[in-house]
């Protein structure tokens, strides 16, 4: 069993990769805060059920439907951003067609950073716990 297969660590890793991806989406919003017709986006939070069940997400696998025996099935695995759906955000659209609210984005960036910090702190603690279990100090 690899160290990363410990459930708590893999859950925290999911959380961390989500925060990483969300930071990217928020950076796009801030960078495009003056672009006409740009609609702000946000990343949907990971589903609690998925984390508990610990199953692989079916969303990761996209396959072509084979409705006739002659069809050749094609498949591809998606990773990274596609795991979480981006949602359209913003209700306040300026005349230029831009819906990014800088204050809101700053709040999101700050809270995202805090969530990431919490996840990494828990990760560190869990590693310490493992060390204790192994008898190292």
């Amino acid at each position, binding site marked *: 069993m690899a160290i990363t297969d410990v459930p708590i660590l893999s859950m925290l890793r999911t959380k*961390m*990769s989500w*925060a*990483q*991806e969300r*930071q*990217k989406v*928020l*950076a*796009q919003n*801030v*960078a*495009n*805060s*003056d*672009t*006409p017709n*740009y609609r702000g986006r946000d990343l949907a939070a990971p589903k609690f059920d998925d984390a508990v069940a610990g199953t692989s997400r079916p969303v990761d696998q996209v396959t072509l439907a084979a409705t006739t025996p002659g069809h050749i099935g094609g498949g591809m695995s998606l990773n*990274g*951003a596609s795991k979480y759906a981006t949602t359209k955000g913003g209700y306040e659209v300026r005349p230029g067609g831009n819906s990014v609210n*800088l204050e809101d*984005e*700053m709040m999101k*960036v*700050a809270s*995202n*950073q805090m969530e*990431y*910090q919490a996840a*990494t702190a828990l*990760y*560190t603690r869990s*590693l*310490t716990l493992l060390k204790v279990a192994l008898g190292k100090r």
Partner: protein
Amino acid sequence: MDFMKTMTIAASGLKAQAGRMRIISENIANADSVPDAPGADPYRRKIPTFNTELDRSLDARVVTLGRVATDKSDFRLKYEPGHPSANADGNVKYPNVNSLVEMTDMREAQRSYEANINVISATRRMIQRTIDILKA
């Protein structure tokens, strides 16, 4: 690393806002430029435009400074018959630059720039946190 992509996106925002600042400073600097010849047209106000561009290597929508447009509004006319650039009626054409508008634009560019800086420093703190796991 994905955090580096975030930094690059924010950097594209910084670059675009810096370019906008350059154009605004050009407008302010030329606010009182007069035409070279009598009756000729003076400096015309420039308007920066922003474009969203899909960066395929980043898989993200970065911002770029688009075509620099010109303001089509009328020039300011000032009655100065003794001026070397005055036309037959004694009027001198001054650029269609409004200092107030330029100042407002400048503040907005500054605010957007700061927001991008904020994203970069938040991301840097997140990277630092990741590295800190190694120290555990």
